[in-house]
């Protein structure tokens, strides 16, 4: 294994760091974004090239891979930023790139990369937890194209996306459609999420689509898995970044707050908790690399196994770090004003996305 970064990697990381320092001031990290902030930051990310990072150069992207996504996601995670980066660019963008016809890619990918629009994968359904392989949302052939009927849940950033990639059941198996949010019959019910972000349940009621809206019926499952794995790898990197910020905040706090006439850092039990946090952080960084390298290598069986392992670790160690850090901050850690709790919320939320620890643990078990 080789963990070395080249000069381009370092430059990318530094650029994202600088962007985050400007856009996510330390005292506001984790606060819900205003519409104006979200627009501004999205534009900024587009300008940095982040929104087209893993998309093909022929369609407005920069043709980079999972390692570059990891570097960016880790910095965004450190700043609790990134908005719909994972949902729109990494998952939906890569799925479009994998399944779309050249015309479809030309229609949407450049607009995604330039930040003109966002896309979101509509895959989960009520009562199915994380298993998306048997959707109830029905796609029926009509003389003019297709009709969709059903409901998708927990579409991350679903109310800022103008394009949904909808996973449906057709007569011949799984199919993916590209559906404009403004299509008649599409109803978006947005809501706040634990981490101060947004998601939506989306109803599709007799939604009529032209044939050109079908992305694919072949190879759909593999492509979805690959896109989701790329997204999960990015979430693992975000986790490492967030925990890195938590460790820094905790070190700072323990060095400055005094009780019993001494800085908290002098108490051995807290030293040991920090030691555990430091160990978790190093392992999280390693797991982010493992997941990114597995996605980059692209061999599906190994990729799925390693990405699942990384997600188990990120879900567990991320939440553990968030909760331990609250404890070390005392009552202050539980306030809205203290940033630590916002990191904890993001880490808990990541744990519940794209398959929780139990889901991915079962997957690791099944591939043993």
């Amino acid at each position, binding site marked *: 294994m080789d963990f070395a970064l080249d000069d381009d990697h370092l430059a990318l990381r530094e650029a994202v760091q600088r962007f985050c320092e400007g856009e996510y001031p330390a005292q506001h990290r984790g606060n819900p974004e205003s519409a104006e902030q979200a627009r501004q930051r999205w534009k900024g990310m587009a300008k940095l090239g982040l929104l087209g990072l893993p998309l093909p150069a022929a369609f407005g992207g920069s043709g980079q891979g999972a390692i570059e996504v990891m570097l960016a996601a880790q910095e965004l995670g450190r700043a609790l930023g990134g908005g719909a980066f994972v949902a729109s660019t990494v998952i939906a963008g890569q799925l479009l790139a994998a399944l779309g016809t050249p015309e479809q890619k030309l229609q949407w990918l450049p607009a995604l990369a330039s930040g003109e629009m966002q896309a979101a994968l509509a895959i989960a359904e009520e009562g199915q937890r994380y298993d998306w392989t048997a959707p109830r949302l029905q796609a029926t052939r009509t003389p003019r194209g297709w009709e969709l009927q059903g409901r998708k849940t927990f579409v991350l950033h679903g109310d800022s996306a103008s394009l949904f990639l909808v996973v449906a059941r057709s007569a011949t198996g799984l199919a993916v459609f590209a559906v404009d949010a403004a299509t008649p019959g599409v109803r978006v019910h947005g809501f*706040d999420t634990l*981490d101060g972000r947004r998601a939506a349940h989306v109803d599709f009621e007799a939604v009529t689509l032209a044939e050109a809206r079908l992305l694919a019926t072949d190879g759909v499952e593999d492509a979805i898995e690959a896109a989701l794995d790329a997204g999960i790898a990015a979430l693992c990197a975000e986790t490492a970044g967030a925990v890195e910020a938590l460790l820094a905040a905790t070190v700072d706090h323990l060095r400055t707050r005094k009780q019993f006439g001494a800085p908290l850092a002098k108490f051995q*039990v807290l030293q040991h908790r920090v030691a555990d946090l430091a160990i978790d952080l190093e392992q999280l960084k390693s797991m982010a690399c493992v997941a990114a390298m597995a996605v980059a290598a692209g061999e599906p069986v190994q990729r799925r196994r390693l990405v699942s392992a990384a997600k188990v670790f990120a879900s567990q160690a991320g*939440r553990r770090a968030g909760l331990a850090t609250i404890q070390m901050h005392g*009552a202050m850690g539980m306030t809205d004003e203290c940033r630590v*709790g916002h990191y904890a919320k993001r880490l808990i939320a990541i744990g519940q996305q794209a398959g929780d620890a139990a889901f991915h643990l079962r997957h690791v078990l099944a591939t043993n």
Partner: protein
Amino acid sequence: MRLQFTAAEEAFRQEVRAFVRAKLPADIKRKVELGLRLEHADYLTWFNLLEERGWLTPGWPPEHGGPGWNHVQRYIFDEETLLAGAPRIIASGIQMLGPVLIAFGTPDQKARYLPDIRASRTWWAQGFSEPGAGSDLAAVRTTAVLEPDGKHFVVNGHKVWTSYAQWCSMMFALVRTDPTAAKPQEGISFLLIDMKSPGLTVRPIRMLEGGTDLNECFLDNVRVPVENLVGELHKGWSYGKYLLGHERTGIAGIGSCKQQLARARQLAAQQGLADDALLQARLAQFEVELIALEATALRLLAPGQGSRTPAVEASMLKVRGTELRQAIYETLVDIAGPDALPFSTEAQFLEHLDEAAVAPELTAVAANCLDARKVSIYGGTNEVQRNLIARATLEVY
């Protein structure tokens, strides 16, 4: 030794159970079972029902209106009420100040304050913590200076993390009356302060799950009559320690653990996880921890049974009980799965439940998990409890 509760104890359990079933209003029960926010009126309603029955102040001696229960009865009462969806008794007047006044208050103070506490007419705020004095309470800096005529103290300082101050009309506070004392624990007094006094302002603190039950209290030249001093001048530390011992026993919260474990089982079934081996093993593990905790509580609390000082035993129960409860709350999040993601401060209130993006049983799961982080922080952090247990243990052996 005998594993079963006695027939009399079982009869008492049935009596409590029947009472809660008959009296607890359905909307309050629903709020508790769904982990939703309770309002002041909810607590008052329930406390008044308990008081009518003579059950609100189990820890008080009968001559002051306690029911005279032994430790097993108190234990059964806690468990039955919580399992039946009743609110926890959170009023610090009942649980903390009452016992202190009974032990150290003047006859006047007892006559003046105890009946109002029992009738829930007065809610008391606990004014101990300060920005610089959390775990190290002996570092309190709020000053109380006796006026030359000896009739009033003038209090200046800044209290923080004051639970439910917005509902309180009185505060009991630790204040520094002798800044020159040799040791930090000396020169502290225990003072009763009218929250409507000029110069006292309360500012709510927003917590990460959206609640605002914690407050800061600023005291700017607040005048307090000298008869509001509890016990001796400069000896407040010992009363504070007495009080914290009382706080810790209840914090073990075994009844709450059982209630949340029952909630976990119910949610697991609702989420289609009744046959999930990984989850069921985890719940069974909690069951084991609970049996151990319950047996330990009943053994250590029995008169003449505990081998160490009661304060240390209370610390042990607090550490295990709170950490078990937090682990169960984390498991609730896991059971909810993706349903733990939506988050709405409004949907934590019964009136807004139908606006939520998930089923009523799931709306508050993540907020409850976050809120539960407090139980290992307040009442003396678990790190500090472990220090106390270690000190006692290492000195014995």
